[in-house]
């Protein structure tokens, strides 16, 4: 194989890290026996790739190369541990000799892909016996290959807190024997819903960052999109998976128009619709059709349907708010959360008039879950401004300003306040 320049190698390893981490780790898990050994082996394999691809050339199938290297390393680590504990037969069982070769042969025979392994891994990470935050952390750590520091940064907790959370979760997986397995079909739907919630949270956290200088955390949003695509490959016939991927694609499609050249928020109303990604919209709409074929449609399909109405409207004034309101009514039946009620109230305001929307928003004021949610106050401010109640609108935007930690959103709200003052 030809030698490769170091910049080229670094790029190839980074790319393989992004695309293949979950695959390599999942394929290494069974050989390794436990998560920590598997992670260590995979990390070592990537480090080896960085130091050897320059001389040997970048392999044709980096994922398979990395998997073979990681599995070899995992066997090595196990053998070493086993020797240390003098428990080699117990761990590796009969026929230990030659196992390494068999593993490598298997890899070659299978062409390197065992999609089921990644599915096993994600169901283990999102097991309901683990706390939701731990599920999210493990998914980012083990399926996306993010470091503990990166996961901590994404969720605004100190690195030590995140490290403790991940360690605790892994310990529970081992001690309680949480299985590395795809749930039986009788349980699959229920368990899958938890997995989809984790992936959706990863995406939304990236779509509008809870704090910081940028409106979006592109890396996290992309991880969410990748995870949804991975699930689609692994579960191609599931309508809820199709619904989630449709929702993410239809939301992503508008990303390029969400901020302007000054990094300011551009509301949907004012977005340059020619900047929307038509290809993503088409792909999302096709998936949506599939997702809506399920009876009754799932919550992600309904949310995707709402996004599709926006994406397919030629302009803000063409938007079919009555259809959106109807979809929110269906969504309320499926998923009656305060945030859904808030969004339904906003749709009502555009379908029936700001006074109606405002009345509905005021009724939501007592929801404890929305008490610190800046979008309730911001929506009230908007409807009050549309009704000409400018002083009250200013107060409402001021409330929203106190509740948001995202710099771009703060700038937007300050803009609204000064507009009303001026």
């Amino acid at each position, binding site marked *: 194989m030809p030698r490769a320049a170091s910049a080229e190698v670094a790029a190839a390893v980074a790319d393989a890290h992004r695309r293949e981490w979950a695959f390599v780790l999942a394929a290494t898990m069974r050989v390794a026996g436990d998560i920590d050994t598997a992670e260590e082996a995979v990390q070592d394999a990537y480090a080896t790739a960085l130091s050897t691809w320059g001389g040997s050339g970048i392999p044709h199938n980096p994922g398979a190369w990395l998997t073979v290297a990681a599995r070899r390393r995992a066997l090595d680590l196990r053998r070493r541990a086993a020797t240390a504990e003098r428990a080699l037969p117990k761990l590796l069982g009969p026929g230990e000799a030659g196992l390494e070769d068999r593993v490598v042969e298997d890899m070659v025979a299978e062409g390197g892909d065992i999609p089921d392994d990644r599915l096993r891994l994600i169901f283990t990470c999102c*097991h309901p*016996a683990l706390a939701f935050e731990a599920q999210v952390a493990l998914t980012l750590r083990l399926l996306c290959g993010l470091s503990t520091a990166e996961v901590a940064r994404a969720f605004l907790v100190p690195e030590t807190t995140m490290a403790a959370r991940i360690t605790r979760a892994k310990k529970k997986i081992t*001690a*309680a*024997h*949480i*299985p590395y*397995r795809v*749930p039986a079909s009788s349980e699959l739907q229920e368990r899958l819903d938890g997995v989809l919630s984790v992936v959706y949270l990863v995406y939304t956290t990236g779509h509008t960052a809870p704090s910081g200088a940028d409106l979006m955390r592109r890396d996290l949003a992309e991880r969410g999109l990748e995870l949804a695509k991975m699930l689609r490959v692994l579960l191609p016939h599931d309508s809820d998976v199709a619904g989630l991927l449709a929702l993410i694609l239809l939301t992503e499609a508008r990303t390029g128009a969400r901020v302007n050249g000054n990094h300011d928020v551009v509301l949907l109303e004012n977005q340059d619709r020619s900047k929307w990604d038509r290809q993503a919209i088409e792909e999302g709409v096709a998936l949506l059709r599939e997702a809506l074929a399920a009876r009754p449609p799932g919550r992600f399909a309904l949310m995707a349907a709402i996004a599709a109405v926006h994406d397919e409207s030629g302009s803000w004034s063409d938007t079919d708010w009555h259809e959106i309101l109807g979809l929110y009514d269906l969504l309320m039946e499926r998923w009656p959360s305060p945030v859904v009620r808030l969004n339904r109230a906003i749709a009502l305001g555009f379908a029936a008039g700001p006074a109606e929307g405002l009345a509905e928003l005021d009724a939501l004021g007592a929801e404890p879950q929305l008490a610190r949610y800046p979008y309730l106050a911001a929506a009230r401010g908007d409807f009050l401004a549309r009704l000409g109640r400018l002083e009250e609108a200013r107060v409402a935007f001021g409330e929203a300003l106190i509740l948001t930690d995202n710099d771009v959103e703060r700038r937007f709200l300050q803009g609204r306040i000064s507009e009303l003052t001026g």
Partner: protein
Amino acid sequence: MSKYLILIYQDEAVARQAEGESISASYQEFQRRRASSLLGGAALHPSSTATSIRRDGASGFAVTDGPFVESKETLGGYYMIEATDLDEALEIAKEVPAGVGVEVWPVRVAN
């Protein structure tokens, strides 16, 4: 196979009414159905009959009336079971006809 302890919680007030009754039909049915997984188990007397013993930090003990934690839901009994993994243990635990619910604890096995 792994061992799990299923702790059965009940509402003390409801349990008091049932005091003195023999083991209910639903528990008998559960025990029959899951006999091959059950390693042992027992029903407990009410929490008012429990006694806590705390080490006092010196060399003695403080003996007090009642369980460590007083709450409306109290421990009413337990099962020790054997299962292949947590999923199977949870399946079994869901079938325990407990009033409030159950906790599933993996049992540590000495090396």
